[in-house]
C-alpha cells in the first residue's frame, strides 16, 4: 500500500528533516535535523512513529499538497501554523487525509517552523544515515518543490488518533536566550558585554537554517580579528567585524574565524527558532553549572511531555 501526494506549492526552506546526523562535526558536517527538534518528535510520537523519524519541515513559505492516492493519518506540530484539510485547524493536530483531499499548511499567529509527519514510511533519500537535508549542499532527503511528489509506504489510517496534540509551554517562542559567555568573551570590552546582556536585539530577515542575523547595538570586538579558525556549535553567537551578531543554527558551518561572544544553551534553541524576523530577543548569562541544571530540568519536562503523547489519548 502507498499513499501519494502531489506538491502544488512549497515555500523556500521547506525540506525533509529528521533527528539529524550527530557526531560528524569533525568532518565538516553539522548535525542538521529539525530546527525545532521537540516539535518534530511530538508530531512523530502522536502517530506512534519513532521520535526522530523523517518528516517535512515547513517554513513560513508554507506547503500545499494534494493526496492523489491512498489515505494516511498525519500530524502537524510546531508553531501556530494554519492547517487546512477537511476543515481549518491549527498546528498541533492529527488528521486523516485521503485521495482527492488538499492539505495546506501556512503561517498563522506565531512560529517559524512546523513539522508534517505521516503514519507510515516517508520515502526519502538519505546521506550518512540520516534523511535530514543539509541546506548548503542539498544532501539528504532534499528540499520540496512544486511539481514534485511525496510517497508514504505502508500508510496507516487510525481515525482514533485524530484530534489536537497538546502544545506545551516550552514549545512557545523563547524571547530570552540563556547563554554561557564566550568562548571569546575576552575579545570584548566590559561595556560591550554589558550591552549584550542588557539590550534588546531583534531577529532580522537574514534567517535560514544556517543561522539568524540579529539587529541591535553593535558588539565590536576590541581585539584584532586574527584568531585561527575554530569549531562552531549550534547556538554559537558569532560577531563579525562589523559588530553584527549571528546565532548559528541547525546547518551551521562547523568552523569559523569570527569571535563568539556567547553560546546559547542548546535546550533553549528549539523554542528560539520559533521566533520570527523582527521579534525581540534578549540574552541572559548563566554560569556553566547553572546551564547544566537548566538543561537537565528541561530534558525532564520534555521527556514527561513526550511520554504522555505515547499513551493512548
Amino acid at each position, binding site marked *: 500500500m502507498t499513499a501519494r501526494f502531489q506538491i502544488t506549492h512549497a515555500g523556500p526552506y521547506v525540506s525533509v528533516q529528521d533527528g539529524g546526523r550527530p*557526531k560528524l562535526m569533525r*568532518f*565538516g558536517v553539522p548535525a542538521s535535523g529539525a530546527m525545532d527538534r521537540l516539535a518534530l518528535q511530538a508530531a512523530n510520537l502522536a502517530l506512534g512513529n519513532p521520535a526522530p523519524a523523517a518528516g517535512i519541515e515547513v517554513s513560513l513559505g508554507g506547503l500545499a499538497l494534494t493526496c492523489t492516492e491512498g489515505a494516511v493519518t498525519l500530524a502537524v506540530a510546531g508553531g501556530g501554523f494554519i492547517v487546512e484539510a477537511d476543515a481549518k485547524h491549527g498546528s498541533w493536530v492529527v488528521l486523516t487525509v485521503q485521495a482527492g483531499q488538499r492539505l495546506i499548511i501556512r503561517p498563522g499567529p506565531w512560529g517559524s517552523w512546523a513539522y508534517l509527519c505521516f503514519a507510515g514510511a516517508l520515502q526519502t533519500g538519505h546521506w*550518512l544515515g540520516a534523511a535530514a537535508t543539509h541546506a548548503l549542499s542539498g544532501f539528504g532527503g532534499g528540499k520540496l518543490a512544486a511539481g514534485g511528489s511525496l510517497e508514504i509506504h505502508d500508510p496507516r489510517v487510525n481515525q482514533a488518533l485524530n484530534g489536537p496534540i497538546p502544545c506545551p509551554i516550552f514549545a512557545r517562542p523563547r524571547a530570552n536566550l540563556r547563554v554561557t559567555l564566550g568562548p571569546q568573551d575576552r575579545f570584548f570590552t566590559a561595556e560591550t558585554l554589558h550591552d549584550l546582556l542588557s539590550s534588546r536585539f531583534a531577529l532580522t530577515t537574514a534567517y535560514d537554517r544556517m543561522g539568524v542575523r540579529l539587529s541591535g547595538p553593535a558588539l565590536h570586538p576590541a581585539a584584532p580579528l586574527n584568531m585561527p579558525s575554530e569549531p562552531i*556549535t549550534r547556538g554559537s553567537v558569532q560577531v563579525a567585524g562589523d559588530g553584527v551578531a549571528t546565532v548559528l543554527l541547525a546547518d551551521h558551518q562547523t568552523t569559523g574565524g569570527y569571535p563568539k561572544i556567547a*553560546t546559547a544553551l542548546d535546550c533553549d534553541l528549539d523554542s528560539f527558532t520559533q521566533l520570527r524576523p523582527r521579534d525581540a530577543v534578549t540574552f541572559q548569562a548563566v554560569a556553566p553549572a547553572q*546551564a547544566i541544571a537548566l538543561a537537565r530540568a528541561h530534558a525532564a519536562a520534555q521527556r514527561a511531555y513526550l511520554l504522555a503523547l505515547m499513551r493512548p489519548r
Partner: protein
Amino acid sequence: MTQPAFRPVAEHGVLVEFADAINDAAYAHVRHLDAMLAAHGFPGFVESIPAYVNILVEFDPLLTDHAAVIQALHGLLALKPAPAATTTPREVLVCYDADFAPDLPEVAKACGLTEEEAIAAHLAGDYAVFLYGFAPGYAYLGGVPPALHLPRKAAAVRGIAAGSVIIAGAQCLVTTLTMPTGWWIIGRSPTQILRPDPAHPFLFDVGDRVKFRRISRREFEARQ
C-alpha cells in the same frame, strides 16, 4: 606543557585551547588529545572537533558536567602519546588544464614562476590534513610550499565548481560543493572526498598525509 585554557561552551562543551596563534606545538597537543579521546573517551563523551590551536569536546549534559569533563581531560592530557603510526599518504589526482586552473597564470606571476614551475611546486608539497571545516568534506591541508604562498583574494568569486583545487597561504583544499571562494583556483580533481561507502564516507582522517599526482585531461575525464 603549559596548561591549556578550558572554556565552557553552553551546557554541552568544553573548548580546550593550547595557544592563541597557530604553531606546531599547539597543533600537536590538539592531535594528542583527539587521539586520547578516541582511544579512551570518558563517561558522557559525545564527540571531539579538532582545529588548529584548540579542540572542542562535546558531552551529554544529562550524564556529566563541565567540571567532571575538565577533570577527565586533565587525565587524558597526562597520558603518553602513542608512537606515531606510519601511514601511506593519501593520493589526490589533479588536472592543471587551463580551464580548470583559471588562477594559475596569476599565481605563477605573483610568485615569480612559470606556470610549469608553479605546478611542480604544488606537486612537491608534502601535505597533511589539519582539520575539516566550513562545510562537509572541506579538508584543510597544510603544507603548500612557501614559494606558492599568497594571501587570499580581496573578494570571493562565486560558483566555483566542486573538485576545484584551491590554495591560500600555506593551505590547500579540494572543494566538495559548488561554492564561492576567495582562494586561488589552480586545478581540478576527480578524487572524491565524500565517498559513497557508508563505512568510510570521507577520504581523509585528520592527520593523514596527502600527496597530489598530476593527471592528463583524458585521465580526468575517464575518472568522472
